[in-house]
């Protein structure tokens, strides 16, 4: 699927030069605006997640006891006197008459500044620094997406939560697709009792409703774990379930590929069976696997959301989109503090949609009918 190293024949006389699959793929993919938008959005989200400590104005667990349930602060460009400013500012708030009510104080304008000093952290886990992308001068606070019941900044938690929620999908896919490819490949290539054993196991996993299985597997791990271990447990659970469906499809594809001449040739050359499976058989399932992987990432993200939503996933004070959504389960929050639903909700929705768009675009662009002969009508 890589760009061929072969030089393309130059010259205008040549009728429709042969194109490498990689080039055809890219040409088709480029023509698909939703897929490009999906890819762009995901690139942005992952970049934000990696840079979370820098982009977020505050650490994910920093409480502000004066600002429980603070609503999102609007950005203003026009001050009290009606003058336009190039630098947006937020207005400081003072507690209102009732609890959790805040009033803007038009006289106290707090301009947003870039690269302000704040909490100490290590950029990319290496460079120690105190600079944050934006913020207001101390002692003011800025909560563009509001605060949660403990007075923590919702935007900061969303960014740190992305580190958990977005990587669960990728790591989970990596493990379950490796398992699924190997088991499906071995199953289809070897046949016999190995095939029977693997397929029967996958049937058992597939016949227990997914969400039940997820909760049941979760109880196998102790209820309260440090957040890093919970994270690993969630990935392990999702990967353990995810391989089954894939292995069955791969097995079916391998059954037809193993009869191909190049496999017979490899066998005749005396290659080991594992090597034939990994080097010659499985690469032929690649375009299917890429599409299937992209389209199954949302399932893993939602798996984490589901577990954390039930309170058995990532634990406070660590943030994840699932446990942020859990805060929105109460009726009081839904009626009076809806931003606690909007922030993680929109993030989850956009991520899932971006993966769906990207997966759909990849499927169209990797369609063998198009890869085989240039442009299809």
């Amino acid at each position, binding site marked *: 699927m890589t760009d061929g190293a072969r030089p393309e024949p130059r010259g205008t006389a040549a009728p429709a030069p042969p194109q490498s699959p990689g080039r055809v793929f890219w040409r088709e993919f480029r023509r698909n605006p939703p897929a490009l938008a999906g890819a762009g959005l995901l690139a942005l989200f992952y970049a934000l997640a990696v840079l979370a400590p820098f982009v977020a104005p505050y650490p994910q667990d920093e409480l502000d006891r004066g600002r429980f349930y603070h609503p999102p602060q609007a950005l203003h460009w026009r001050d009290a006197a009606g003058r336009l400013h190039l630098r947006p500012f937020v207005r400081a708030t003072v507690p209102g008459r009732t609890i959790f009510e805040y009033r803007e104080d038009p006289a106290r304008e707090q301009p947003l500044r870039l690269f302000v000093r704040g909490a100490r952290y290590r950029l990319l886990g290496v460079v120690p620094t105190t600079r944050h992308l934006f913020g207001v001068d101390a002692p003011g606070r800025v909560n563009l997406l509001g605060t949660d019941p403990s007075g923590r900044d919702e935007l900061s938690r969303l960014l740190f939560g992305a580190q958990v929620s977005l990587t669960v999908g990728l790591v989970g896919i990596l493990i379950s697709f490796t398992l699924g490819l190997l088991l499906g490949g071995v199953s289809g290539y070897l046949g016999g009792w190995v095939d029977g054993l693997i397929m029967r196991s996958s049937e058992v996993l597939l016949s*227990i409703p997914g969400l039940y299985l997820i*909760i049941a597997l979760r109880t196998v791990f102790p209820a309260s774990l440090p957040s890093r271990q919970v994270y690993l447990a969630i990935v392990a659970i999702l990967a353990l379930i995810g391989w089954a469906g894939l292995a069955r499809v791969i097995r079916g594809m391998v059954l037809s590929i193993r009869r191909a001449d190049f496999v017979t040739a490899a066998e005749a050359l005396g290659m080991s069976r594992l090597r034939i499976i990994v080097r010659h058989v499985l690469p032929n399932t690649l375009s299917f696997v890429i599409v299937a992987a992209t389209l199954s990432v949302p399932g893993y993200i939602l798996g984490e959301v589901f577990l954390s939503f039930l309170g058995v996933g990532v634990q406070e004070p660590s943030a994840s989109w699932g446990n942020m959504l859990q805060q929105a389960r109460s009726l009081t929050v*839904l009626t009076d503090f809806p931003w606690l639903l909007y922030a993680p909700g929109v993030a989850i929705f956009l991520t899932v949609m971006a993966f769906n768009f990207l997966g759909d675009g990849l499927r169209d662009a990797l369609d063998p009918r198009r890869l085989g002969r240039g442009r299809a009508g």
Partner: protein
Amino acid sequence: MRTFVLRRLLQLVPLLLAVIVLTFVLLKLAPGDYLTTLAENPQVSAATLDAMRHRFGLDRPWTVQLALYLKNLVLHLDFGESFSRHQPVFAVLREGLLNTLLLAVAGALVTWGLAIPLGAWAAARHNSAVDRALSLVAFVGLSVPEVLSGLVLLMLAARTGWFPVGGMRSLDWETLSLGGRALDLLRHLALPALVVGLVPLASRMRQMRASLLDVLRLDYITTARAKGLDERTVVMKHALRNALNPLITLFGYTLGSLLSGSLVAEIIFSWPGLGRVTYEAILSRDQYLVVGSVLMAATVLVAGNLVADLMLAAADPRVRRD
């Protein structure tokens, strides 16, 4: 065909046995048991705990527990007793089962009631603005997880008061007339059913659209048009029936998720169904209740898939030979 069905049915027996064993093993792998939380209560004496442990059979090795469970299940159709509810598992499940079926059927009505007309509409107006808009809506709809649609609808209920925010019956249920009760139940059912129904809606709609488009390309439709029938009659009377055929096999998969597909909606809307029972049972380690409900949900799931496969086999003879 008969041997095909028979063979598939026989395959279910070891499969369900494996499901029971796996569930049991998972429960036993987990640290502690039902009595662990009880033991933290200082008011429960050690003697009481020992008595309960003996009564529940938790003092025996898990292999013996499993063997006894299987023996009672096969010989007496006895699903054991729920620790937390002091009731036979079967009685607990039966109650949740009816509520879940009600929710699932209502959800399926939402799905199919919307998917068929909308999909047909999009296909009949192929490549029009309507078609494009519906495709977009379907695509966006595919990306809304149940947890989100559930919370958004719950917010709607909490803010407007048009619908109850959870449960299955109002407090004054006993005083209502029969019609009042039906109305009350419907109001409680509406939002959770919508959450359950919206999940497969987008894909069903796309399948309906694709299926009708396939049929509309066939020669007999051209004939019907050539006869001078108006487009409405062509689509509604001639094309639609044939377009529904492939969708019927999909209905089998809907049957499979009847019991387990509504878990999220049940949790968000406090619907007293099987999903909630299972969820609570797993968390409290009420082991025979867990095994019973997982077994039941798995049976329905594989049976639904079997029905779908049979429908497919009936429609496509190539499947039968496999």
